[in-house]
């Protein structure tokens, strides 16, 4: 292998990439803008407080508030309203989660079950208030009392799924578009043929193109980690985050192989771009890049196993955010490499040097 040729081919391809404003925008800038946007939107989204309208005087609630204002304040936000009908309308509209009234010794709670989580919280909180009041009325000293503690769910912090998800999408797009457009353009412009007529091995040409794409993927990873770990977004990298580097590299290979296959069939850059979009975009939704699989409907979770992007995204998530052992990324790496090998083998069979 001719190292000089390899170096100058890589340089030529790299310059071609960094001078392509559209490619720079779509592979680096746009994913980062998405990260900034979604990161800011979801940043404040922790477990929601339940908003309650108190109609008339609800002595039970007042007692509970007086007893442990700090505890209750974590879960409930109470406002007052004289008119029951207006309060109920507010629940119907979804502006308020519940309306509470007291009629003698009966506590009436009106709530919507539109959001089951909130409905559950409403039920639990008021049941607990009634039980405590019951116990107090019976003269029993409260041996137990309500305290609320939000559990720091491993998968819950938005930045922890946003960063690997959007990065996975960026790496996948970069690989698939890079490989397919290069192949189609070079074939159309007869650069493939020209290189075949030069004393340079096919291996050098492929290695140069793959090498540049791997370097671009590492730049994407670095940019994402730099932004996501800013205190504002607050991604805390787990100990084995470095395993996300081989995951990104293998993901790039897998998606370049997808691009290679697309480029082997597509005749023009336009059709290659269209097909790559049709492959990548649904995969971003179904493979856990845009919609975190933890919150996705079960059918998406099942479909996601067929999406190569799933393995890239979850592989990174496991080692980057969930704090799993380095070996947790190995299955994803294995699947991505196997896919790369399979698709490359198919591409070699249908490969064409020339447009005609």
């Amino acid at each position, binding site marked *: 292998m001719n190292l000089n040729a390899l170096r100058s081919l890589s340089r*030529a391809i790299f310059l071609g990439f960094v001078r*392509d404003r559209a490619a720079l925008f779509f592979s680096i800038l746009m994913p980062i803008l998405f990260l900034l946007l979604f990161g800011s939107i979801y940043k404040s989204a922790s477990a929601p407080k339940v908003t309650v309208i108190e109609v008339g005087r609800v002595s039970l609630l007042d007692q509970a508030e007086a007893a442990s204002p700090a505890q209750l304040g974590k879960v409930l936000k109470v406002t007052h309203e004289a008119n029951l009908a207006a309060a109920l309308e507010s629940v119907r509209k979804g502006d308020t989660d519940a309306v509470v009234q007291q009629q003698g010794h009966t506590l009436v709670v009106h709530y919507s079950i539109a959001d089951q989580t909130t409905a559950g919280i409403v039920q639990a909180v008021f049941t607990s208030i009634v039980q405590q009041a019951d116990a107090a009325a019976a003269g029993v000293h409260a041996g137990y009392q309500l305290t609320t503690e939000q559990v720091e769910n491993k998968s819950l912090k938005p930045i922890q799924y946003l960063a690997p998800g959007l990065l996975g999408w960026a790496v996948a797009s970069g690989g698939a578009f890079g490989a397919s457009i290069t192949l189609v353009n070079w074939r159309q412009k007869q650069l493939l043929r020209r290189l*075949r007529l030069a004393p340079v091995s096919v291996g050098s040409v492929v290695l140069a193109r793959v090498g540049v794409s791997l370097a671009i993927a590492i730049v994407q990873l670095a940019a994402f980690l730099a932004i996501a770990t800013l205190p504002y977004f607050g991604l805390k990298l787990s100990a084995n985050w470095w395993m996300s580097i081989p995951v990104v590299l293998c993901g790039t290979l897998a998606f370049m192989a997808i691009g290679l296959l697309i480029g082997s069939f597509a005749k023009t850059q336009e059709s290659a771009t269209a097909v790559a979009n049709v492959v990548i975009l649904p995969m971003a939704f179904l493979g856990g890049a845009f919609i975190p699989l933890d919150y996705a409907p079960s059918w998406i979770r099942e479909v996601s196993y067929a999406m190569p992007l799933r393995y890239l995204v979850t592989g990174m998530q496991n080692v980057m955010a969930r704090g799993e052992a380095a070996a947790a990324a190995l299955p994803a790496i294995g699947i991505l490499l196997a896919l790369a090998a399979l698709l490359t083998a198919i591409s070699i069979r249908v490969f064409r040097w020339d447009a005609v």
Partner: protein
Amino acid sequence: MSATISVANLRKSYGSTVAVGGVSFAVEQGEFFGILGPNGAGKTTTLEMLEGLREPDDGELSVLGLRPWPRNPALLPRIGVQLQSSSFFERLTAREQIRTFASLYGVSARRADEMLGVVGLEESAETKTEKLSGGQAQRLSIACALVHDPELVFMDEPTGALDPAARRNLWDLLRRINADGRTVVLTTHHMDEAETLCDRVAIMDHGQILRLGAPAVLVRDLDSPVRISVESGLLSAADATATASSAEVTDDGVSLTIATHDPAPVLASLAGHHALAGLRVQGATLEDVFLALTGREYRA
């Protein structure tokens, strides 16, 4: 024998379509050889087999004493190829482009820069190839084909989409390339180009070589009448017909034209009548030979 290229009974078919149906020719060292033919005649397929891009179905083929197929790494550094498309890397400047190609052949950047000078592109060295004019891009493409100083150069329709001035300019360059001792093989469908540049041409159609020889010889062999024309009104039609035994006379009101196989007595007679104003004498051209061989019907 030391022919640079020797081809015997070369054949290539695509499915049931015969692209090249048994052609034989030889190109000598230092020769400027042209392959002419309408679109679909088999020129490009022939060239591709010579370059080693396609495997011949049958026939003998030797280029610089080597077999081009399968891809022969010993042959590649000795040939230069200029393709129909410009085949550049995207978004590189002219200088970066030729240096990249130079490095594929193990040629220094200094030599690559010199080559830019040879084709007159020093001024545009820092221009991106997408921004070069058609003529400049073609000259860069040729420079990239010559950067490793090949003995044999193949060019596929090098002046395809150029304006007349750019074509003349390129012809000078091609002549210099050949004058340096390189063998040049080009395909073209511009007859004037072949007539001006080529030592010998092969006229191809339907996968066969119809004629092969020096352009002047092919024209002479056509034995078509010489057309002599002068301004109208200098000579009556009767006088004009009388100038030669088998002359065909037409007068369109602008020019009086006499077509004859025997021009000497016609010219003498015109001089005798003092009727030489606006004189033009046109012999047949390679284009006439070409059209006589391939027919005039339009083929896309």
